[in-house]
């Protein structure tokens, strides 16, 4: 059974078809890359999976259960987390408090057993260390650099202790070494057992990270398979890579 | 409650004419809120201001209120531009429009109302014009001119704006600015300038709406508050961002209020608008023709 199953998911905005009958499966522990031109529907698909948008047609199954009608916060509690393309930190909270939010509302809510304050503190600390922000725990998001904001974004997503992490263009606009940092982080998370869907434009990162590659163009999936084969697919080259 | 054909027809006609007037009152909000996404709750204050200015010009110079409002159009346009500039610099640019922008407009609404109380007191004011008083009869139906003239003027104003927004370059830029500011920039049109023009127009309509208001009924400073809910009810009911939707919403509300006032008593009429607003928000927030 796949961890995530997207079955014939469709989404329109008025007359504009953002997603047309998308089928996608993600196995547990897999590293999936999702690529496509701007406006092809990648973020819309993420939003439909996570529940921030409602798909009109089709079903999203997570661990076999239908997510239809489930609000976003419940999906997070089930184990789906995402980072946002443009970082959206909680500006009035410190870095540590930002991470504490998903810990408070997802991890603690999920297990049912009341965790202690100390436990919360420890988990928060671990996450900060994982992304290398432990020295900036009391800093405000407004004082962080771009790459630190991306790290915070990922740390916050990880704060929900997900089974599936969707990283939406986490590396956009970063330098080579910064991209490497994020990449290493994602690989490490995957090694710990977390399934990762990486949405990216940076082909070198996508190719080195993905075990499987899916391509979205104009709301439709045009390719899905081994990365090396997908990038040689003439339709993919024409629609996306030839740019 | 006596239900006669006579009452029914006249309530219907009064409702339609009232609806027409409501178009004038709401069109500014349809532009500001529906298109520009600016929650200008001070709009009703501008309308009342327009009413009082029409009153002054009418009582001092005997100027026809509608004429007075047309003369005041550029002044109100300038006011709108100025208010938008403050709003943009203080809130939109900083991304704080949610809480602070609302508080800002609320403050403006409040200052205007209290300012008017201080200058004019709480007595009702009204204007004199040759069409206030006489009625036009057609069989059983009664068309009081003081309702008919504002209705016609309002619909003319709507027509002109609709043409402007759909046929002229600036007009179409205004329609586009909320949906795709990037595209506008690519055409080297400054979205901020467009929004400023649009908001100026929005407030300018208040000049006319105010004159129409004081033709229909006597005005005192707190009258504006009754209209806040009406205006947003119509905008939401008709569908935000759709000017034709505004007309439909306005007509519906006018007719409903008219029937309520005729058959249940006028003191219930304000509740109709607001009750409808709450219901619309609860069950069909995108309205009838909404995006």
């Amino acid at each position, binding site marked *: 059974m796949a961890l995530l199953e997207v079955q014939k998911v469709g989404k329109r905005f008025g007359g504009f078809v953002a997603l047309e009958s998308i089928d996608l499966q993600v196995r547990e522990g897999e590293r999936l890359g999702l690529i496509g031109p701007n406006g092809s529907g990648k973020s819309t698909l993420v939003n439909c999976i996570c529940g*921030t948008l409602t798909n009109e047609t089709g079903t999203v199954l997570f661990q076999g259960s239908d997510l239809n009608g489930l*609000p*976003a*916060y*419940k999906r*997070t*509690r089930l184990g789906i*987390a995402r980072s*946002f393309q443009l970082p*959206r*930190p*909680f*500006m*009035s*909270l*410190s870095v540590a408090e930002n991470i504490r*939010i*998903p810990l*408070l*509302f*997802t991890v603690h*809510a999920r297990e049912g057993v009341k965790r202690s304050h100390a436990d919360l503190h420890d988990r928060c600390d671990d996450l900060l260390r994982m992304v290398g922000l432990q020295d900036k725990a009391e800093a*405000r998001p407004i004082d962080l650099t771009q790459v630190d904001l991306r790290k915070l974004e990922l740390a916050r997503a990880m*704060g929900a202790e997900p089974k599936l992490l969707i990283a939406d263009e986490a590396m956009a606009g970063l330098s080579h070494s910064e991209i490497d940092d994020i990449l290493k982080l994602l690989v490490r998370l995957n090694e710990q057992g977390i399934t990762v869907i990486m949405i990216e434009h940076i082909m070198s990162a996508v190719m080195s990270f993905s075990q499987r590659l899916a391509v979205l163009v104009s709301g439709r999936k045009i390719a899905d398979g081994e990365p090396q084969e997908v990038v040689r697919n003439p339709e993919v080259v024409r629609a996306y890579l030839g740019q | 409650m006596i239900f006669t054909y006579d009452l029914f027809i006249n309530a219907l006609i009064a409702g339609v004419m009232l609806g027409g007037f409501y178009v004038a009152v709401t069109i500014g909000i349809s532009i500001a809120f529906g298109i520009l996404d600016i*929650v200008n*709750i001070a709009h009703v204050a501008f309308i009342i201001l327009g009413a009082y200015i029409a009153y002054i010009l009418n009582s001092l110079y005997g100027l026809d209120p509608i004429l007075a409002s047309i003369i005041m159009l550029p002044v109100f346009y300038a006011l709108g531009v100025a208010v938008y500039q403050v709003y943009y610099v*203080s809130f939109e640019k900083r991304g*704080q429009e*949610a*809480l*602070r922008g*609302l*508080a*800002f407009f*609320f*403050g*403006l609404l*409040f*200052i205007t*109302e*209290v*300012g008017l*109380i*201080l200058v004019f007191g709480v007595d009702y004011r009204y204007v004199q014009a040759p069409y206030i008083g006489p009625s036009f009869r057609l069989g059983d139906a009664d068309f009081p001119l003081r309702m008919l003239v504002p209705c016609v003027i309002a619909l003319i104003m709507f027509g002109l704006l609709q043409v402007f927004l759909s046929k002229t370059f600036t007009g179409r830029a205004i329609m586009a600015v909320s949906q795709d500011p990037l595209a506008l920039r690519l055409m080297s049109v400054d979205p901020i300038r467009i929004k400023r023009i649009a908001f100026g127009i929005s407030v300018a309509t208040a000049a006319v709406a105010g004159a129409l208001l004081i033709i229909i009924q006597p005005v005192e400073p*707190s009258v504006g*508050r009754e209209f*806040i*809910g009406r205006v*947003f009810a119509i905008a*939401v009911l008709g569908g935000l961002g759709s000017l034709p939707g505004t007309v439909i919403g306005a007509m519906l509300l006018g007719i409903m209020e008219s029937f309520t006032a005729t058959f249940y008593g006028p*003191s*219930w009429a*304000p*509740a109709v608008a*607001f009750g409808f*607003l*709450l219901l619309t*928000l*609860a069950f069909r*927030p995108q309205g009838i023709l909404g995006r």
Partner: protein
Amino acid sequence: MRWSTFIIIALAIGAVLFGTMRWFGNEYYFFAGYVVLQYVVLATAWNILGGYAGYVNFGSAAFFAAGAYSTIALYKIVPLPIPVLIVVGGLVSGLIGFATGYLTLRLRGVFFAIATLALAVVLQTLIINWDFVGGSRGAYILRPNEIVILGSYIQYLFLMMLLLAIVAVSAARLIERSWLGYGLAAIRDDEFAAEASGVPTLRMKLIATTVSGAFMGMAGAPFPYIISFVDPASTFNLAYAVNAIAMPMIGGTTTWIGPVIGAILLGVIQQVATVTISSAVNLLIVGLVLVAFVIIAPNGIVGLFQSWFGRRVR
């Protein structure tokens, strides 16, 4: 500081305040003090939803009036002691808050704000047409002259409002520092991201709306007793709507002490102004100060202090 310590300190301050005022013995001070404390409760209540969660309520007068008119309705049946009336007022207004929230909080915050505007007018229209509570003509309440131990009934009302203010402020502080406060802050900062982080946004907004409405109703419940004559015009007064917003925004919306500062400052100024200048001018000044603060000092007086002394906003 622990919650219990905070309440003890607050009660101590309250006791000192009450004792000092009794020593002065001027009945008018008790009346003015009542009004200021009433605003402390209203401002604090508003801020739980407006400052903590970022959802603006323009219809504070409606919730306040619901409390006042619950008292009148009950008075016509059987007069009850003030604490009971306060609880009833809180329940009624809390219910109204819950209902309004349930209908509109799924939409953008702007629609909630508009709905609260609408609510005030709907409620006012209903009251005007409800003859049992006096309709537009108003209703009289016979205020008892005396009460056991304290003597003056006005002092008793003042004491009640003082205790209510302490409860309200303590509750606000408790919420602010609890998981509820964190969740509301996340909602205020970025509702989308909050929901994606597992925050049950709708549920938390509903809690905030209900609590906020309830406290406003509690503030309104003793109102008929202090002014003896209640009519829709005085109860749905614009002053409540604007002050409930202006006081927290001027004082500072991110923490419990902001509304308190704003309420005491503006409340006292307005009491002085109403006596010396007209009440219309006084309201005008409030409006001007509100707009000025919103533009220039968006984090209010608390924010100004914190930027001078370099401390965090939250």
